[in-house]
């Protein structure tokens, strides 16, 4: 419960009532202003001019394309990072080897680097005078200002979610259950499917959901590599920004509400996963 119950047992441990209430009011106000209010504003602004306009704004071809591109990006980045994350966490949690700490630090790099810098990194690699331009040109592959760039940047940004979530969980669980399975005659795959995976499934789902949320919402890095070509390289967040800059507020908020809706769905699944994970 949010409100503290005062009784004779914990009297000595509790702060005085006036302090209690002050702290509660401050926290609640903070929550309301910084988290709840923006959400309410997004939806009120989105529906201010009625359902029809909202529907038009999100069903026009450019918005639909942005939605498709956002989903495509997530559909590539999330599975790729899931597989990578699983492999990395397995390796880091079950084995001790030289350079392990360096790898753990490297995995956190995308969190530490500003997304804009991350985007610029890809421009430096694949842009007009990029280091790897020779290779991509010879393959006739456009990366920057095209869909592959957007996917690459998103993958970079969402790289740590699954790996971080699972490394801690798997380290804490140790490898005794796996060893037991092996000594009972199970093969490596049987051990993975029947022992390892069930033990980490909620943690894994949690990591995937966080990864997905960020993949769909990423703005900075994608903005640098995308080039903002309407109907071609615009994701939902970029599309919302363009509409906003054109003073087309209702449309911008309509698109934003779509993103917010996706985020809310994600959060609901996340809290379910979190509760299961704790059990």
């Amino acid at each position, binding site marked *: 419960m949010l409100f503290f119950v005062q009784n004779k047992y914990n009297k000595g441990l509790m702060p005085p009532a006036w302090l209690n209430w002050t702290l509660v009011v401050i926290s609640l106000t903070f929550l309301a202003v910084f988290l709840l209010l923006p959400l309410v504003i997004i939806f009120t602004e989105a529906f201010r001019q009625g359902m029809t306009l909202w529907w038009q704004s999100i069903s026009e071809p450019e918005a639909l394309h942005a939605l498709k591109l956002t989903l495509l990006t997530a559909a590539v980045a999330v599975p790729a990072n899931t597989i990578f994350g699983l492999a990395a966490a397995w390796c880091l949690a079950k084995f001790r080897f030289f350079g392990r700490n360096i790898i753990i630090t490297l995995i956190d790099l995308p969190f530490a680097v500003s997304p804009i810098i991350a985007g610029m990194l890809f421009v430096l690699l694949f842009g007009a005078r990029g280091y790897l331009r020779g290779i991509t040109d010879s393959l006739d592959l456009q990366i920057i200002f095209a869909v592959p760039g957007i996917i690459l940047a998103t993958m970079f940004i969402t790289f740590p979610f699954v790996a971080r979530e699972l490394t801690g969980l798997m380290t804490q669980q140790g490898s005794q*259950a796996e060893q037991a399975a092996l*000594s*009972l*005659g*199970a093969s490596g795959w049987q051990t993975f499917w029947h022992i390892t995976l069930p*033990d980490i499934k909620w943690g894994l789902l949690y990591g995937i959901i966080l990864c997905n949320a960020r993949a769909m919402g990423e703005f900075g890095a994608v903005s640098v590599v995308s080039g903002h070509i309407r109907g071609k390289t615009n994701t939902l967040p970029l599309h919302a920004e363009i509409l906003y800059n054109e003073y087309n507020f209702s449309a911008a908020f309509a698109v934003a509400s779509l993103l917010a809706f996706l985020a809310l769905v994600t959060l609901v699944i996340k809290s379910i996963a979190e509760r299961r994970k704790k059990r």
Partner: protein
Amino acid sequence: MTISITNITKSFGNSKALDNISVDFTAGELTALLGPSGCGKTTLLRLVAGLEQADPGCGGRIIFNGQNVLADTAGKRKVGFVFQHYALFRHMTVFDNIAFGLRVRKKSQRPTKAEIKERVYSLLELVQLGNMADRMPSELSGGQRQRVALARALAIEPEVLLLDEPFGALDAKVRTELRRWLRQLHDKLNCTSIFVTHDQEEALEVADRVIVMNKGRIEQIGSPDEIFHQPASEFVMQFLGEVNVFHGRIESDDPQMVHFYDQTGQTDQPNARMLIRPHDLDISTEPDTDKRQIPATITKIQTAGPSVRLDCRDNNGKIVNVRISHDIFNRLQLFIGQNIFLTPKQLQIYRSGQK
């Protein structure tokens, strides 16, 4: 199944967990690996199970019934292993835990569903958990989990049963019960069993044979009686219970001709250590010049317990522990501050260092 281990060395980084170990385990025996933590006993057990690999260069062998299994995986060795913290599969019921080893077999070797069910229930009966099949491990007590782990290991019908600190995490009362029960179970199963423990009482009570280990080496192998009454080294003597250490001098070839260095003001360096257990000291209130006696003063008396425990101080101020029966204590009417004379009934003498 007889197990024979020869010249096995295992290192972790620079430290040797096992240093050129050779030992045989007789078929059908229950053997205890006893030693302080870090002595290598668990490593040895895990090597037998195939959960740990010996150093590649050591040239050692692990032989099960005449066959070298060193290169075999843990699964192939068909060894029942019970982990220290049980390592039950948390997301499976008790039934599924026990059935696991049978269900993962290749189709050609896998028993039918009905056979698996029958086997699991008979194992549950054996470990006295007949009505717990549908419970989750989290719903069981420590002792029950331990027995599920045991049933799971037995499901694959191993000829070798290995237990890593099987009672380590249980409270004292459950521990004594389970210990007796394990002994009975072993007699019923006709298995070669090895268990690891750091509790000397446990090893002496349960095992047919005890292997005492220290710093990656074997200190002594023997029956509980031999280990307790004829400790091969000072380490074994110290590890198996409380001892009083005295310094002395071996004057001739007859080891019984030892002078307690502390007593008569010798000028020579001591060259022997004499170890005496607290219950191997006789107390008298009068001096007796015919006997080798240690004069001391009583500093503390503790009568709560099956025997009376006395803390005494000898002439050098060293504390000597003595245990006597309540009968003798009452007859002698001892009190704190009293001067007494201690006579060793039995002592172990170890030459210390170079002469």
